[in-house]
């Protein structure tokens, strides 16, 4: 990876990952616990470098633990979406016919419902907890990979039809696993950056609306909390927001850098 953008993205993500890993070491206590006087200004108390919020909770601890939540949700959602999308796309592409038609209509249905509304409805039905939120966001994120994988399966099926047929006694699922998936993977991976970034943003929005997991710190809930004192202590909503921007930007930059690197290797190799 050579592009300066890609390197910048990598740096951002490494930094955020370091924050996420260091959070329980530096702030082993509950980041939601009240630790000081409410609304301590930043840089006034060395024990509370970023000050406290309206309830007296440590902003720095929240920021670090929030990075953990955001990255966790982003990665887990991508995993769920990729797994589900790959499964559906492969089945649709290999089965063809009525099965394919039916599955693709389901994909269409998931695509015309606003993903955020779907997540909202899902969370309201099952109650907010981190796994539920990951599933809820994954609900609208799997359609992209499903379409891509299906298209790839179809094109490969077309291309290597004869070769595949020659592989005597190979089960269709085996063909999919050995021949189709490795080829379909690069474009799907390119989608991953978008899924991770979207998931981070959607989780933040849900938390901002008070529909996130109430037992973990999230940047979205910190922004919502700070909003109550927007005029007097704007940093309380600005700082976690910058964390979100840095995360999403880092993911996009890294994704673009990786895609460029892959394209470059393909062109050269």
């Amino acid at each position, binding site marked *: 990876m050579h592009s300066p953008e890609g390197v910048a993205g990598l740096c951002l993500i490494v930094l955020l990952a370091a924050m996420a890993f260091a959070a329980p070491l530096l702030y082993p206590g509950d980041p939601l616990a009240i630790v000081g006087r409410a609304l301590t200004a930043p840089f006034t108390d060395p024990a509370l470098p970023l000050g406290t919020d309206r309830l007296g909770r440590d902003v720095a601890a929240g920021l670090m633990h929030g990075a953990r939540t955001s990255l966790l949700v982003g990665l887990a959602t991508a995993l769920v979406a990729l797994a589900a999308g790959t499964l559906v796309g492969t089945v649709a592409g290999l089965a063809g016919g009525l099965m394919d038609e039916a599955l693709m209509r389901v994909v269409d*249905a998931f695509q*015309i*419902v606003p*993903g955020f509304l779907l997540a909202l409805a899902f969370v309201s*039905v099952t109650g907010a907890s981190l796994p539920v939120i990951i599933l809820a966001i994954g609900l609208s994120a799997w359609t992209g990979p499903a379409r891509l994988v299906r298209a790839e399966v179809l094109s490969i099926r077309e291309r290597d039809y004869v070769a595949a047929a020659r592989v005597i006694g190979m089960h269709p699922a085996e063909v999919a696993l050995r021949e189709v998936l490795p080829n379909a993977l690069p474009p799907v991976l390119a989608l991953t950056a978008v899924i991770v970034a979207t998931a981070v943003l959607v989780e933040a929005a849900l938390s901002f609306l008070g529909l996130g997991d109430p037992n973990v710190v999230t940047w979205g809930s910190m922004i919502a909390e700070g909003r109550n004192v927007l005029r007097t202590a704007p940093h309380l*909503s600005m700082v976690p927001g910058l964390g979100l921007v840095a995360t999403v930007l880092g993911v996009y930059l890294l994704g673009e850098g990786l895609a460029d690197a892959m394209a470059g290797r393909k062109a050269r190799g």
Partner: protein
Amino acid sequence: MHRALTMTRRRIVSSIPVLLIVIVGTFLLLEAAPGDAVDAYLLSLGGGDAGLVAELRQSYGLDQSIVKRLTLYVGALLQLDLGWSVAFDRPVLDLIVERLPNTLWLMGAATALAFSLGSLLGIVAGARPGSLTDRTLSIGSLALYAVPSFWLGLVLVLVFAVDLRWFPTAGIETIASGKTGLARVADIAWHLALPVSALGFIYLALFLRMMRAGMAEAWRQDFVLSARAKGLARRRIVLRYVARNALLPLVTMLGLQAAAMLGGSVVVESVFAIPGFGRLAHEAVSGRDAPLLTGIIIVSAVLVIAVNLLVDIAYALLDPRVGSGEVAP
């Protein structure tokens, strides 16, 4: 125009099964919620006796089997009856019809802003790939693309409403101002300026980036070389050859983003206290109002289908190749 009509008809027919899946899926999802509409209603009343409960359950049809209720629901939908909102104690359809225009204005303005400014800046960037302007706009748009809309809303409020006092912090119009006609339109526009920016800027960045990428691709096309061989003015090559072709995928994106933007309006309307469709969704969740939420999801799906129809028509008008396999005499 004939092509567009045939396409429209085909599109409508093909979206019927998809819509049916949405209806059934949403209905079943919200059926799975613990407690039903009557529980929610009683909660809002503060309790009630068993007789009332049974009577209510019967009047809502809740004592029937789920299949029966689904058929009843779909049957009612066909007569444009979206059910009864327990939180507002009003017909769901009335609520939606009342709230939808605000959101349509918000989304329409945000889309117009994002599309016009985004494609314009994209042309500026893509006119000279690799130039300083191009790189600046490219990095700036990527940064903007990473900004969550609700947080951007807060930043805009902080700067332009709290500090500079140029715009109001919330609401869709001045309450009880008695304004009419153009004055009222201006008042609404003044109120919508910040929310439209908060909602639209992400898409502005998206359109800018797509336009830029599309132009980079178009520059490599043979017809650009032949335009240069004709000695055409650079301006004409950039606009009529490069940008004109790069515009087409942007129009498609307009349809693809309709659903996402509708979702985005939920948070933005909450930030700016705009009584719109998105905020209604938030209120439905807070009020555990399953019928309302079901109605909102179904209507938003219809809305997305409608936007995509419009986009298809626009695309057919912009791309002469659509839908004609014919070869001239």
